[in-house]
């Protein structure tokens, strides 16, 4: 993030990155038990500068520069949480969260269940995710399915600066472990955030949201694909088609009531994500919508997502990632039945 000098009150135009930075700042101010840890999060301010300036203001004991050891970072965060702290761990990129996968799935996700509720682990794992930055595997992955598939973890992802600012604070306050996925290709997108609004005024962390009303087809996305949804709805409107858009915001738990309600009106559903569709979030959503809205559906649920390949060569990623054309194709298909 460029060093914008932003007054910390009132309504501000912020990037998603800066909104996360200010949200983390608030979290550190609000609760002395909150700690940030990760590689280069302190002096450097993180590879994407999300923690910029926080070590300077809160000290090395609150914002810890860890050695290069993801498993160690998450493992020690769990130990800290067992003794009452609220650590927020940064993984530098999606693919680098996998060395910590053991700690996340074997310990973090299971401790509350295993201890029969005696131990809570309010740990947040922040992971920049998704493609579209011209880089290859490890730096462009969409790991949400792994985490959402693991009971005991909650998985959320903001798509706007406002959500970024509030959701990161809500995640820190949550007594369950939260995998917090940040759409890295969108860090620089701007939007208004009211910095005076209390966290309590924000929507619940695990709620999805209809962010554009429409009548002809429901399109669901989250994180990096929200922009694609917006562009698709604009283009469809020019063709006289009205899309209703839903931002899931949370992948575990899934809040699908607004989706059911929408599909009962539109009769059509397209689900869009960068993760491969093969057993991906859209598979679960299609299954649930099919059982809840069977008699309302005019067409099978259509899915737009990554293919069943590893993340491809950078020159081909535009073919791999969902875009306006693929979303509109899918919308067309729902009208072909």
């Amino acid at each position, binding site marked *: 993030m460029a060093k914008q000098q932003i007054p910390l009150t009132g309504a501000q135009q912020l990037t998603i990155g800066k909104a996360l930075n200010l949200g983390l700042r608030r979290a550190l101010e609000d609760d002395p038990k909150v700690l940030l840890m990760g590689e280069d999060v302190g*002096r*450097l301010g993180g590879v994407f500068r999300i923690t910029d300036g926080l070590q300077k203001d809160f000290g090395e004991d609150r914002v810890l520069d860890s*050695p290069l050891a993801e498993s160690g970072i998450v493992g020690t965060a769990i130990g800290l949480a067992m003794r009452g702290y609220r650590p927020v761990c940064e993984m530098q990129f999606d693919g680098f969260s996998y*060395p910590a996968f053991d700690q996340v799935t074997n310990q973090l996700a299971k401790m509350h269940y295993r201890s029969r509720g005696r131990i809570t682990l309010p740990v947040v794992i922040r992971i920049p995710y998704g493609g579209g930055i*011209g880089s*290859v595997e490890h*730096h462009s992955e969409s790991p949400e399915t792994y985490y959402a598939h693991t009971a005991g973890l909650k998985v959320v992802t903001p798509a706007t600066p406002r959500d970024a600012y509030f959701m990161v604070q809500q995640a820190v306050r949550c007594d369950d472990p939260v995998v917090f996925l940040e759409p890295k290709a969108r860090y620089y997108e701007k939007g208004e955030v009211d910095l005076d609004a209390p966290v309590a005024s924000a929507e619940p962390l695990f709620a999805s949201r209809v962010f554009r009303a429409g009548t002809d087809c429901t399109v669901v996305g989250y994180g990096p694909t929200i922009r694609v949804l917006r562009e698709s709805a604009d283009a469809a409107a020019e063709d006289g088609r009205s899309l209703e858009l839903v931002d899931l915001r949370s992948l575990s738990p899934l809040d699908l009531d607004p989706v059911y309600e929408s599909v009962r009106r539109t009769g059509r559903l397209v689900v869009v994500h960068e993760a491969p569709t093969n057993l991906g979030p859209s598979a679960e959503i299609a299954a649930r919508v099919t059982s809840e809205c069977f008699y309302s559906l005019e067409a099978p649920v259509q899915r737009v997502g990554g293919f069943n390949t590893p993340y491809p*060569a950078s020159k081909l990623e535009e*073919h791999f990632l969902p875009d306006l054309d693929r979303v509109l194709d*899918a919308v067309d298909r729902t009208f072909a039945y």
Partner: protein
Amino acid sequence: MPTSTSAPRRRRRPPTNPAADDAQLLAFYRQMVLVRRFEERAARAYTEARIGGYCHLNLGEEATVAGLAAALDPTDYLFATYREHGYALARGIAPERVMAELYGRTDGVSGGWGGSMHMFDADTRFMGGYGIVGGQVPLATGAALAIEYRGGGEAVVCLLGDGTTNIGAFHESLNLAALWHLPIVYVIVNNGLGMGTTVEQASAEPELHRRAAAYRMDSARVDGNDPTAVYDAVRTALAGARAGRPYLLETVSGRLKGHSVVDPAKYRSRAEAAALAAADPVAAYAVRLHGAGLLTDELIAEIDADATATVAAAADFAEHSPHPDVSTLFDHTYATPVPNDARRLPGEPLFPVPANGVPA
């Protein structure tokens, strides 16, 4: 499986590379200048948006590249990190294929799929660059075990950074190698930094070569700015490894620029940057060879012109190499045929799976 009590199983042959003679001393210099010019050209291509993603350069590491590569036999295996362009060149991969890979083109060593971080070339036994820190270390250890089983005289050299010594896979691997007496040399390229974090901030034992003590492994630290010192040290280490005594070598050099091309390295003070530039290994080595009467001003200019021409030709080649075709997007996900494999992009023709399952 070699057991923990078994002695090294066989006497491997002594090192074949002789101590560096004058020709070798000059060859080091040529190699270093080529790497320097190549990396400068790569940085330029990056700022011109011909190279995308993340791109980590060997600037400051040239002496280590030259000394290390010369010490390997052609049949030895090299596992690298994502900071691997120089090693790929020094291993003998044509500069145009390395550059084309950076450009993401089909003539690249990985067909445009690897980019800066994931070059691979079986012919030169260059076993890959790796984008996950530490990912290569257990793999290299396994390749050494394979040598043991197959009964060859080869050895594996596994590169890693100073920061990488703090990841679990490093320790797991060293323990295995020592336990099983594997023919492997781990080389820690200590450039003082893992991104913006110094060795002292990250490592409880900042003399990194001493970590070998935990595994009763031989080790040494050597000046990574001196190609002859690196060459000698790697030869010594390889001799031990070939005799079943794995080795941990630490080379100490500087990273002249940021962690990757996009990193302005603001965490480094002006004085630190100036000190690094003053210790530039390429310039220092030129002065040394000049003093020894091996290099003249004319020869310096000639070597430089050669390297510049080679690199310009590589960039030109890369520029004209085709982009990967979208029809190849699905190839090689699996080695065996997958029934009902969906090899189709929406709205585009079906790319059929050939009967033998092997894409054209």
